[in-house]
């Protein structure tokens, strides 16, 4: 061991060595810090994007290069050389003029100074003058005034001189330009020829990744002006919730999704793909531009993160994609993220965040379908769902049920609706995975007791009803043809026409299946004749059936039997079990002994009714059906208003391992079999899951999941939501009525729905009229009248417009909806006399003949032919003149496939009259239509309208 200097604990050399070692380690770690900070995954993505762009531009460049007319370019270049040579001859002249311009600069500058000085003097003196005036110093004011006048004069002169110099300069410059004009012109031509290529070349140059690119993006200096950088949009009007604070949304998705808003990259793989729907989303001119709407607003996820696929909360569409991502991007599912991204197929859920108060959201097909399904299955009966509040109960009223079906039918039906009617929308409560008689025989027996008690209770409460008509038999075949032709199928599916029913897919009314085994014949006839006789608030309209028609339809419906079902015998009430269940109810707030004592005080009937009452409450029958004694009770199911943001931990997955552990996974699984969560879990009878099974298809469950996922606690501020303007509000209101009465079951309204039209694929004109711009077509007072007093307009149609039981308010809503939808709200003055121009009437009549209008519109004109077009005598009362004109000018454009010929196709005149002027011809015809209406409607006896 070396001897140390006195006073030294360590050898200095050793200290130096340790110091050197640690310093080098330190230095290396600093380098690591630099690299760690510098290498970010999104940079690689952006470099990839630049390469893609480069490739694309290279191709574009080649195309542009090819497009250039080489010969022309050569000749132009030669011309240019020629012109430049010519310029040399003029060089002396040009130089002379340019020298003059240069000399002029001195005067210009000098004058600028002079006028500047004078201008400042004018302003300053003006202020002094005004101050003197203000302080009432007339002498001073006078002095300043004269000064001001002088300065102003000088200033004006100076300005004038300036203008003179400027004009001179302009002249001289023009001279130079004239001298050079040849060169300039040729140069312009060349530029025009090569412009596109040069521009592409410039763009191409920008994608170069040369030394400057390297410097700009080098570590440390990349703060100066980097080309690789995090891109973001900040959206003030859409916020994220951060501890009760609403903070503007920040989306940085475009950092990696580089071309998301640029067309031309549709074929690229993600993340470099263009958004697939630029016209509707993201595009600069779309209704949802990226800068205003952002990305996570719709897709969800962590928009402000950029580090990798996982932290940004990307969610794969399916298992396949998940595996792909794991392989490609080392994907790990988002962890500790409140709202992961919606799966691609669920994106439409987000529409409702901003689009509220409307029944249909244009473009959101899955969501609309899901909502339609919610409407169809009446989910809103038991659950509070936004947009479905205050809807009528989805099931029929049970207040007079005793007169409609038998008690035995009722019990069997409640037990298993689908065994009676495979199309039944009433869900199944019993024989489910948590209460079937095989695995849970005791529960099933108790269920039987409950159903018995419910029936007793309902029958006890049922009010008497006496059908006003007696069924006396009818023609079954005619009945069937009536059911399929008058329009029943707009709302009902019909047994015996299953194929057609499926095509139409209507759901507003029950599928008519086995009706004969279900209802009382007298009740049925009465119901068909006058539905509101039995139930005041029914949406079933009257088809104005004759007694014969009603009887025939009833005959057909009664012929539909479900014999197997008829034979079912429902087990009788097990009183012991009934009492046992009741004791469980009573003991909730009491001891067993107390409960039993309470029970003992009740009579047998009382006990049954008590259980019935309790069971109706337990299963929530009242949520879908009107039941006496349950008015005003709240819905039985959980509130779904914020289901889309309900924390995942609050979803009970039970021991269901095959269900995906996500919000949408749970909801879909739940919709498909709500009782699955009880499987393998020991629950007492009173606690087992009660949500019934709707036996949904995958598609239905999927679309409904989308509709439910959209209901979130995220509150988009008013500035961000789609606020309906006064027009749209009225339309939305009207659409609610339209949906309530299922008008869209028959009528296609501006391209939406019209389910029944599926039956008329062969000739769409045989189906209910499509309503396009209906508010423009008809006059609104007529419309009002018509809705209250329906009469046939198209005599050739067998399908009928029924008479609805509309309130004034509803009728108003419908009429104003159409008006506001078409943005035509004016009243047509029908008192006006048709005012013919000279010769116009004759021309109109001539066209009437030439175009043979009476062939189809024969009513009132031609007794020989059956009318195959509306009666024109109604036109004056019904149609707007401006619409008639539009219609005549191009019926095909309004109703594609209409039988009405386009006589004035593409603005061509239909005749030679009125100088062959299309516009005047159309006007004349409109006037003619209006003149028809002033005459009394001819009957078969009166003379036809004459042309005098």
């Amino acid at each position, binding site marked *: 061991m070396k001897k140390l200097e006195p006073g030294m604990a360590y050898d200095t050399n050793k200290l130096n060595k340790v110091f050197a070692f640690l310093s080098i380690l330190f230095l290396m770690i600093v380098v690591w810090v630099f690299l760690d900070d510098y290498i970010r995954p999104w940079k690689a993505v952006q470099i990839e994007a630049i390469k893609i762009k480069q490739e694309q531009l290279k191709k574009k460049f080649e195309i542009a290069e090819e497009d250039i007319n080489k010969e022309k370019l050569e000749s132009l270049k030669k011309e240019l050389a020629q012109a430049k040579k010519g310029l040399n001859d003029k060089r002396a002249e040009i130089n002379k003029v340019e020298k003059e311009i240069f000399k002029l600069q001195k005067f210009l500058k000098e004058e600028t100074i002079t006028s500047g000085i004078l201008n400042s003097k004018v302003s300053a003196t003006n202020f002094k003058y005004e101050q003197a005036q203000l302080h009432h110093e007339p002498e001073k004011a006078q002095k300043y005034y004269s000064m001001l006048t002088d300065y102003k004069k000088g200033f004006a002169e100076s300005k004038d001189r300036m203008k003179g110099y400027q004009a001179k300069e302009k002249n001289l410059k023009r001279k130079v330009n004239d001298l050079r004009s040849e060169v300039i012109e040729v140069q312009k031509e060349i530029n025009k020829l090569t412009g596109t290529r040069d521009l592409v070349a410039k763009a191409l140059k*920008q994608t170069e990744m040369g030394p*400057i690119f390297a410097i700009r993006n080098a570590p440390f200096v990349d703060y100066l*002006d980097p080309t690789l950088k995090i891109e973001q949009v900040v959206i003030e009007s859409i916020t994220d919730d951060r501890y009760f604070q609403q903070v503007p949304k920040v989306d940085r998705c475009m950092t990696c999704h580089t071309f998301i808003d640029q067309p031309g990259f549709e074929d690229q793989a993600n993340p470099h793909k263009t958004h697939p729907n630029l016209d509707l989303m993201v595009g600069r001119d779309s209704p949802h531009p990226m800068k205003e709407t952002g990305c996570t607003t719709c897709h969800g996820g962590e928009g402000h993160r950029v580090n990798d696929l996982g932290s940004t909360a990307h969610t794969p569409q399916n298992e396949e994609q998940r595996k792909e991502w794991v392989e490609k991007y080392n994907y790990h599912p988002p962890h500790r993220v409140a709202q992961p991204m919606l799966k691609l197929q669920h994106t439409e859920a987000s529409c409702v965040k901003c689009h509220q108060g409307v029944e249909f959201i244009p473009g959101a097909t899955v969501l609309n379908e899901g909502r339609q399904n919610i409407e169809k299955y009446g989910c809103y009966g038991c659950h509070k769902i936004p947009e479905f509040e205050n809807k009528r109960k989805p099931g029929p009223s049970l207040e007079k049920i005793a007169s409609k079906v038998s008690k035995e039918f009722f019990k069997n039906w409640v037990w298993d609706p689908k065994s009676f009617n495979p199309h039944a929308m009433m869900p199944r409560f019993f024989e489910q995975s948590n209460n079937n008689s095989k695995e849970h025989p005791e529960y099933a027996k108790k269920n039987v007791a409950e159903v018995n008690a419910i029936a007793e209770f309902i029958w006890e409460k049922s009010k008497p009803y006496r059908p006003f008509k007696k069924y006396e038999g009818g023609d079954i075949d005619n009945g069937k043809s009536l059911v399929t032709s008058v329009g029943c199928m707009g709302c009902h599916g019909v047994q015996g026409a299953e194929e057609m029913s499926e095509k139409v897919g209507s759901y507003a009314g029950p599928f008519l299946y086995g009706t004969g085994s279900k209802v009382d014949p007298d009740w049925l006839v009465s119901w068909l004749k006058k539905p509101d006789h039995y139930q005041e608030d029914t949406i079933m309209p009257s088809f104005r059936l004759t007694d014969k028609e009603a009887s025939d339809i009833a005959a057909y419906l009664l012929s539909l039997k479900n014999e197997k079902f008829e034979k079912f015998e429902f087990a009788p009430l097990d009183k012991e079990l009934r009492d046992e269940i009741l004791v469980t109810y009573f003991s909730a707030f009491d001891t067993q002994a107390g409960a039993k004592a309470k029970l003992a005080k009740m009579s047998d009937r009382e006990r049954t009714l008590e259980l019935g009452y309790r069971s109706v409450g337990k299963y929530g029958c009242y949520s879908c059906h009107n039941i006496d004694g349950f008015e005003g009770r709240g819905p039985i199911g959980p509130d779904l208003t914020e289901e889309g943001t309900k924390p995942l931990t609050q979803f009970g997955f039970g021991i269901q391992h095959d269900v995906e552990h996500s919000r949408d996974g749970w909801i879909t699984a739940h919709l498909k079999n709500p009782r699955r969560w009880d499987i393998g879990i020991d629950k007492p009878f009173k606690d087992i899951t009660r949500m019934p099974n709707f036996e949904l298809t995958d598609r239905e469950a999927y679309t409904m999941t989308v509709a439910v996922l959209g209901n979130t606690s995220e509150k988009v501020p008013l500035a961000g939501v789609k606020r309906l303007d006064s027009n749209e509000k009225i339309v939305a209101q009207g659409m609610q009525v339209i949906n309530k009465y299922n008008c869209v079951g028959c009528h296609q309204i501006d391209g939406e729905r019209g389910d029944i039209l599926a039956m008329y694929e062969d000739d769409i004109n045989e189906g209910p009229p499509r309503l396009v711009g209906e508010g423009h077509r008809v006059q609104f007072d007529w419309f009002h009248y018509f809705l209250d007093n329906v009469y046939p307009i198209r005599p050739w149609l067998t399908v009928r417009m029924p008479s609805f039981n509309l309130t004034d308010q509803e009728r108003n809503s419908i009429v104003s909806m159409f008006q506001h939808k078409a943005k035509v709200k004016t009243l047509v003055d029908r008192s006006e006399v048709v005012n013919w121009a000279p010769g116009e009437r004759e021309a109109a009549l001539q066209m009437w003949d030439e175009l043979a209008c009476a062939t189809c519109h024969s009513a009132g004109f031609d007794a020989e032919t059956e009318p195959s077009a509306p009666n024109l005598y109604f036109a004056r009362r019904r149609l707007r003149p401006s619409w008639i004109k539009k219609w005549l000018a191009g019926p095909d454009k309004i109703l594609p496939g209409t039988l009405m010929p386009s006589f004035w196709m593409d603005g061509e005149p239909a005749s030679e009259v009125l100088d062959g002027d299309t516009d005047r011809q159309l006007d004349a015809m409109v006037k003619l239509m209006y003149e028809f209406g002033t005459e009394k409607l001819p009957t078969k006896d009166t003379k036809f309208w004459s042309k005098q």
Partner: protein
Amino acid sequence: MAAKGLADKVRETQVWKSIFRHGPPDNARNRAAVVAGNVFLHLHPIKLKKSGVQLGYTWCMGGLTFFIFLALTVSGVLLMFYYRPTAEYAFNDIVALREHVPLGIMREIHRWGAHAMVITTWLHMFRVFMTGSYKPPREFNWGVGVILLVLTLLLSFTGYLLPWDQLAIWAITVGANMAKATPFLGHGGPGASLARIGDFVMVSDKNDVRFQLLAGRFVGEPALLRFYILHCVFIPLVVGTLIAVHFWRVRKDGGISAPL
């Protein structure tokens, strides 16, 4: 007599003795002990030149500056309890300080104290120059003092923004625009237009010194936060450190100056 007896009794307790390890400072030994044994007083010499305690000589401006610095630290820390440096809240919090927060003059003490500190610092320097006290061996300490003076101005300047009213943002805007004109480093300064290669702008409003100061192109919320941190943490730490150096050097350079 009784009172004196009581005082003596207190002095004799173990508690007192544990804190003050000497008798009353009425003799040389105790006078030395009271200064040397106290962490707060031990920066002082035990004995000093008479001129050092003469107001006519020192004006006490340095001492006052330090006192105001301490007062500002205390009042500043207290203000921080009620002040949030965000665009939403800053102004409202200032209003709260004057409207309903207890001890409604806290902000006034802080603000006027800040102005007073600028004044006392200037006057301290003025006095030091007048008595030639920067001369050897105190050259280095004068330099430290000049830096402290600049930091004092910066402290005051950074604090000026925090009320987040018109006075604040426009005063800082005027001040920060000077940074814009720094040669080669500010985008409005001489030479800035030369620092570019094609599209690559090396000195622009997005990367110059003003941007660094404001964390933005204009006085906005990031600037507020940045100024808050500078004002409350960064500059005070530097100032505190330099004050320690300054005081230490006063002692080491032979105390308050006096004729040789």
